[in-house]
């Protein structure tokens, strides 16, 4: 992965994003999902280094799929036609009690499709911060056509995230030394926000004060006064062109299939119904 030009990597990731969001066709989504898995495995990332990222994604997946699609059904509205075959037409027994639950086979397949779509996108993007040199962001975005100010923002955030984390730790220590406990929060959401104000306010105030110094430091070294060059060198190799051509073909194929051959709409494969027939 280190040998692939970041521009080619971003082009591929965005091509995959647009491909995955262009269709609900299960076969196409499955192929995209497979491509994403192969791409992710090329990064040779360990679970240990990525687990925080996956934890965040799992919260998103749980909210969108389990809560929004399976439990409430709200997320399937407008895509899954109303009605359909119930997964438990006669309800089910749990802990000696009888329950009825209106989950349909179609909605469950929609959850699977959603899972494939979101995981494909996640696999493509989660690896970027773990595999890309933080010095390359500015040059990459600039050469992809973004203005210098915007292109440098990402690089700058990589510089100051550890500082922010350290400041947060100092404030946390300062408040813990005054008896603040992070655990055992009680009460409603407003109460909880009030309880963490001793952390949020000093960290935010310090970040605001720091941002003035950072802006001054940038101004004093001529940032934004003329067209910027970049120390980080980006060189396209033949394999980068291969990746870009592949990305274009992938996206074009999906778009043609989706819009020319009408394969963008949600559908449920017959074998899926077979799993739920008695």
């Amino acid at each position, binding site marked *: 992965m280190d040998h692939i030009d970041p521009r080619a990597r971003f082009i591929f990731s965005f091509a995959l994003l647009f491909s995955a969001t262009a269709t609900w066709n299960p076969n196409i989504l499955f192929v995209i999902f497979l491509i994403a898995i192969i791409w992710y495995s090329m990064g040779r990332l360990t679970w240990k280094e990525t687990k925080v990222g996956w934890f965040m994604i799992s919260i998103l997946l749980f909210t969108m799929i389990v809560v929004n699609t399976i439990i409430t059904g709200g997320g399937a509205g407008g895509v899954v036609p109303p009605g359909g075959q119930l997964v438990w037409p006669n309800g089910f027994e749990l802990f000696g009690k009888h329950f009825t639950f209106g989950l349909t086979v179609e909605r469950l397949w929609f959850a699977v499709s959603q899972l494939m779509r979101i995981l494909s996108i996640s696999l493509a993007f989660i690896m970027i911060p773990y595999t890309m040199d933080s010095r390359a962001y500015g040059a990459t975005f600039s050469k992809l056509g973004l203005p210098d100010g915007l292109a440098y923002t990402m690089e700058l955030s990589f510089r100051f995230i550890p500082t922010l984390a350290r400041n947060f730790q100092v404030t946390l*220590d300062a408040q813990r030394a005054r*008896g603040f406990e992070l655990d055992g929060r009680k009460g409603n959401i407003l109460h909880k926000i009030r309880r963490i104000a001793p952390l949020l306010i000093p960290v935010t105030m310090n970040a605001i004060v720091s941002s003035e110094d950072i802006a001054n430091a940038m101004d004093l070294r001529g940032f934004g006064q003329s067209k910027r060059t970049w*120390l980080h060198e980006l060189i396209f190799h033949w394999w980068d062109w291969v990746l870009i051509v592949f990305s274009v073909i992938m996206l074009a194929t999906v778009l043609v299939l989706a819009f020319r051959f009408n394969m963008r709409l949600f559908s449920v494969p017959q074998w899926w119904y077979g799993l739920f027939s008695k």
Partner: protein
Amino acid sequence: MSDPAALPLVVKDLSFRYHTRTTPAIRNINLSLESGQIMLLAGSSGCGKTTLMRCINGLIPHAYQGTMTGEVLIHGKSVKGMGLSEISKNVGTLLQDPERQILGTYVLNEVCFGLESMGMPRKEMLPIAHRTLERLHILHLKDKETFFTSGGEKQKVALAGVLAMEPNILLLDEPLASLDPASAHEALLAFRELADEGLSIMIVEHRVEDVLAIKPEKVVYMDDGEITYSGDTAGLLEAVDYSRIKLPADVIARRAKGKVHPVFLPTVPQLEPESQALVSFQDVRFQYKDDTPEVLHGINLEVRAGEVIAILGHNGSGKTTMVKHALGLLKPTSGKVLLEGVDSKKSTIATAAKTIGYVFQSPTQMLFAPTVREELAYGPQNLGFAKEQVEENVDWAIETVHLEEELPTPPLALSFGQQKRVSIASVLSMRSRVLMMDEPTAGQDYWNYQSFMDTILQTPGFDAIIFITHDLDLALIYANRVVVLYGGEIVADGHPQDVLLDDEKLKKWRLLPTSLLKLNQELWPKTGQYLRAEALSQFLT
């Protein structure tokens, strides 16, 4: 006298008022700087030094709006007609906190930042960056992440980023503020070297005595927005109020002779050597993770009632890690920390707070409440004090720091010095037995830091006081015990007169002997104790 038009920097009749203020921040400033000269710009906090620097480096009027009269000429050309880009090629500025100035994630990127902004091709910027890093003797750091560089290294890296743009004028805003004595001395020598190579340097600094060591050609003293002294070093030593800026101890002692000075008496109780230790470190070792090096190597230390302890040590010596153990924020990898006899592993941080109240370096790291009263009540409320007890503690704490009238004020709206006192009061209100302070004088000018320390040391309510500092003079004036940390070990522990006796050892520990220490050692047969410079005056012959 050189032709003014050819001088690198000339400031003529300069006045400036910020749009948000009703009075000018600086008035009628006139100064000039020649190639190869160092100018020391001294003055107490709020005297207008930073505003003057902003007028020279172009942040005024480009980033800060206001009314400006007079002019700043760089090589004869007025900055009014120059863009920030053009000014930055001539004027390099090192801001006070290098942590906030460094923009690159890696050292080499940081050094090249300005060159990138100038649109310089990569091939041209690389040799310049290497040359600059070599010039500051930090080429070995070029591939290091800037976040992981030490305090001294950070400052050199930030300086390299400025010097790479090859300015003729260098403005340094309190460049010694976060450095230990040895790093500060090294930084000053580097500035002298740069001036000798032809750079014009203006240093804004509270640590006047330290800067005098590199013999600045010009000294300017500002007070309330105006220059009240401009000339050479010898003149400054006689002209300015010695209680406002830190002059060499022998000068203060000589000038203070015959004058009456208030006697300083700390209010901690009499030392009780046989009493139970308030805090006890027993062979404490600590490493953050299994695969990282050990940070503390077998620390043994006992703190008893009546002690005022100064903890000295170079940047990264383990002072903060040690203090976090005393607070229960970190637990030892091996060994024990006992707070009033209770193992820190068996007690909560809230319990530890009843023994030790810790004041962090910057008050903005802890102040958050809408009013000072709520800020002061926060700690005792968390510790479960009854409502009446909380109110009683708050009233006592605010009276102790003499800020009663500020109880309804938002703490963040107060001045830095007042915020510092509120942060002390917020610890006082918890009725902790030990007061522990991290760099209590950081960011304060000489006058403020002396009056602050005098006030705190004379504040009743603490059985012992511990402070972490880089300032040797602070230790010898205020402490009755000095602990020196070096590389995660306690290398000295005892009375100041014993610990600070050997110059060679001090240098090895990166603590440099000061003029006050030398004068105290000289007068020791007469004094029998370490005293501040004013008090030594009566022992001069």
